[in-house]
């Protein structure tokens, strides 16, 4: 039986400070929304962003000072990797809030609660990045998803949004069921829930099935094929800032768990899960890219491109080395700027033209050279064109895979670059080459501009001068530097 020691010292509490602070902050925001009649939702948005900024500063200070440690019998760890992922989550949330401020204006009800929900999900995901055993994985995953169930269906008069919410909810609950079942199997086989204690476990069918179920549940979160079915409809139906949020933050949090689970707990079964990731990666990339070609709606296009991008990220998981982990984390940074930037442009455009159809992007360059140029940069970064961030991210992943000699995966990945180039360029073609039917200019509000400029700056900086960020990722995953080699074998894999 596990004994929990819940008495916390002040030194321990420091490790939880970002989450505690953000929790108090969001309670304050909710209270202000209820009590102060005069406060506008824009002000609430700015307050939320301020809270996130303070949290980010705290995390950066922790990173600098090396404030790390574990709490609650290793259920919660704050190491450099957790801090890295938390910064990504906080940064993504802040960018999403910048995009939301104007969008929230269109909601008929619950404008203030929107910020509460977003921040609550963010806190849940921050806990996810720190969770170090299966129990906390389950609790934090559900906690973070809870906010999303509400957020996806926020446009309650919109049929699409309600449909998206329902789809997301049903599949999310299903995934939760799989997760719980997987956890129970793993616990039954190993007698422990903490990742680091599982490292020496003996292989058995029960363990294998348990982990495959857990992988499936996390696969739902990151939207890897074959667990991607909810993605396109949910992305299309959800309010666009929520889609942007959904396209990045939960994926980052789930990847933190995947990294911990496979690189630490399952290090000894590496040959088996490498195969799993290779297959999942190949299918995600190919499926995502090929289906994206046929899309007419920009949100759906970005949804499928997101599936393909997760396939790219899984190249790093398949490599199964520290370098693979570093590559994933660097790629996530590049993906954050490019993807959120693209969604910011989508929001900016849709606020004026009230449409998300790619057809309506015709001649965007004439209507708003700024938005068109920004979208061009973001899409090309997603496609992996130098000198943009996505290119370095892809090369990093490919180098990690090459060092493990995963040739099939590499070849598929490289072919997919060409396929993805096609549909990104289709959007570019609409924006630059086609002539607009309506030539009125598209104005951009300040908060969205902030989000777009941040995206541009990040995309260019990470592409031209990635050194410090690569080093940051390398330092964050020092714990993987001695990944245990394959020692145990599962009975299903002949010869180990």
């Amino acid at each position, binding site marked *: 039986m596990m004994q929990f020691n819940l008495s916390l010292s002040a030194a321990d509490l420091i490790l939880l400070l970002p989450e505690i602070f953000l929790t108090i902050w969001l309670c304050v925001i909710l209270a202000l929304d209820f009590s102060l009649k005069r406060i506008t939702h824009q002000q609430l948005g700015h307050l939320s962003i301020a809270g996130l900024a303070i949290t980010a500063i705290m995390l950066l200070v922790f990173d600098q000072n090396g404030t790390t440690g574990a709490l609650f019998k290793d259920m919660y760890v704050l190491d450099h990797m957790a801090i890295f992922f938390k910064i990504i989550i906080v940064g993504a949330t802040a960018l999403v809030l910048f995009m939301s401020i104007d969008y929230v204006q269109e909601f008929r009800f619950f404008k203030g609660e929107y910020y509460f929900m977003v921040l609550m999900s963010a806190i849940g995901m921050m806990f996810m990045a720190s969770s170090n055993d299966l129990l906390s994985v389950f609790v934090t995953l559900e906690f973070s998803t809870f906010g999303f169930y509400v957020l996806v269906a926020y446009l309650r008069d919109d049929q699409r949004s309600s449909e998206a919410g329902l789809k997301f909810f049903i599949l999310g609950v299903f995934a939760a069921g799989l997760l719980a079942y997987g956890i129970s199997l793993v616990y039954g086989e190993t007698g422990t829930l903490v990742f680091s204690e599982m490292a020496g476990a003996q292989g058995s069918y029960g363990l294998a099935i348990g982990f495959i179920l857990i992988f499936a549940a996390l696969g739902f979160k990151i939207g890897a094929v074959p667990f991607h079915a909810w993605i396109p409809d949910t992305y299309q139906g959800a309010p666009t800032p929520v889609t942007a949020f959904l396209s990045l933050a939960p994926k980052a949090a789930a990847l933190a768990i995947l990294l911990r689970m496979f690189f630490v707990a399952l290090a000894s079964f590496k040959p088996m899960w490498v195969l799993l990731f290779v297959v999942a990666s190949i299918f995600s990339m190919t499926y995502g890219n090929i289906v994206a070609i046929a899309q007419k709606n920009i949100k759906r296009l970005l949804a499928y491109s997101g599936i393909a991008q997760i396939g790219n990220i899984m190249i790093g998981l398949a490599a199964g080395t520290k370098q693979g982990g570093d590559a994933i984390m660097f790629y996530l940074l590049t993906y954050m700027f490019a993807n959120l930037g693209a969604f910011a442009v989508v929001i900016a455009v849709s606020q004026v033209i009230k449409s998300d159809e790619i057809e309506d992007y015709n001649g965007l360059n004439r209507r708003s050279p700024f938005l068109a140029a920004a979208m061009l940069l973001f899409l090309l970064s997603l496609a992996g064109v130098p000198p943009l961030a996505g290119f370095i991210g892809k090369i990093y992943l490919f180098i990690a895979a090459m060092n493990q000699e995963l040739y099939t995966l590499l070849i598929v990945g490289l072919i997919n670059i060409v396929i993805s180039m096609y549909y990104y360029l289709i959007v570019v073609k609409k924006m630059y*080459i086609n002539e607009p039917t309506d030539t009125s200019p598209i104005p951009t509000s300040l908060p969205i501009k902030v989000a777009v400029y941040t995206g541009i700056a990040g995309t260019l900086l990470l592409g031209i001068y990635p050194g410090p960020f690569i080093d940051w990722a390398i330092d964050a995953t020092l714990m993987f530097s001695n990944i245990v080699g394959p020692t145990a074998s599962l009975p299903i894999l002949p010869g180990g």
Partner: protein
Amino acid sequence: MGEYSLLIILFAPFLGAIALIFIPRQEELMVRMTAAISAGISLLASFYIFFAYDPAKGGFQFVQRFAWSEELGIAFYVGVDGIGGPLVFASAILLFAGIFVSWHIKDRTKEFYIFLLILAAATIGVFMSLDLFFLYFFYEMSVLPMYLLLGVWGSHTKGYLSMTDPEGLKLRDSVDFIFNFGSNSKEYAAMKLTLFLSAGAVMALMGILLIYHMSGLHTFDILVLREQAKFTDTMSNIIWFLIFIGFASIAPIWPLHSWSPVGHAAAPAATSMLHAGVLMKLGHFSIIRVAFEILPEATHKWMWVAAVLCIGSIIYGGLVSYFAKDTKYVIGYSSSSHMGYIFLGMAALSYISLSGAVIYMFAHALATSMLFAMAGWVYDQTHSRDIPSLGGLSEKMPFIAGAFIVGCMASIGMPGTINFVAEIMIIVGSWEKYPFQVLVAILGIVLTMAYMFKMMRGLFYGKLDPEFAHTSDAKNWIDRMPLILLIACSIILGLFPGHFYDVVSSTVEPMIDRINQVAPLVTQNTQGLLP
């Protein structure tokens, strides 16, 4: 100052592009001047490196190295040798000329110059990269601006080859039907070009990553790899083919050429100039830089493939040019045909032939960009590129007609132009190893004469259609300057190729020695053939 000249050449256009972002779009003159000034700085610095390169010392000069990512073994490492230097010079000339050729572009001038500068700077970047990562980085970076330049400022082609019989019945729209599916929109051309080149690029990337990993060195440094990389036979063959096919598709060698004339024909004049002038040479250059330097054994073993395929390039390109009716299409296919000479020179692997190939890259860049510039002028004036419907334009545009004739002569390889020097070197240098291909090349020259004369006659002689009575010549210095610059470079270097030859051979000779040392087969007795 001198040692930083490569950085100046590379970053002047980039900084120009960045500066353009902040210039309001109404200030069109300022936009053009900014572009011209940044290209001018680049041209002056490249002029300097071309003449300051010391052939006696050889090797890589003006080297600059900055750490970029220790973890991945990447450094920002630039330098030029006798092959990169002239090509950097050619790129800078073409960029400068191209900016003046496109002086009259009205639609979205600012964006046009931004993309043009990025395209040229990326091309220049490839020619000076001594790090495989950056070579690929700039290579891939040069592809994307092409998409927009073609798609936005390009023009639809009017059918590739409307081959009609005397009764006016259409026999067949295109010899290229199988590859082109009869589509002649600029969007199609742009997309085809981009996807083709990206596909080639990722193939080459696979080769580069294999070099990175299989050499066991985990570095992208070309000089380190050249000295230390050792591969097993199978692996070096695989890598060689990945590199060769990947880069030859931009060159473009015969069965992989179909994107190029389509792209040329659709592109605006300045883009065609850069594209045919230097972008296509990225392929040859990268093969020399990567395959010749790092994989000498495989190069020696497999370079005959290029010698076989170049027959297809020369003959097919020449024949299509002869039958084509669209000016840009003729020039585009003639480029594709002339690329065959470069491959022949490279395949023969002798001092003279490889030097000839390098000089030909430079010479062809000047000649073909002249022709594209003038085809662009004719198109701007007449809004037609259909040779049969034009004619007698020399009455209206004597300067253009004169310059066009010089361009055609250069393209044919008339003595006095640098093309002559290059062609004769390729032919002499390859005779020993590939006599049949040399005969094909000579036939190719005859074909070139045929279609060039045909095009000249079609455009400038005969009766002037009254429809074109309003057309005008290039009158002011802005319009004439780029043509004069290109012609002057071609003729001056053609008359005095000494320094150029020294520069090229100082790099080519050790390279050929390395390749042939591995398995000495070809005797070198062609020394002293040139002054």
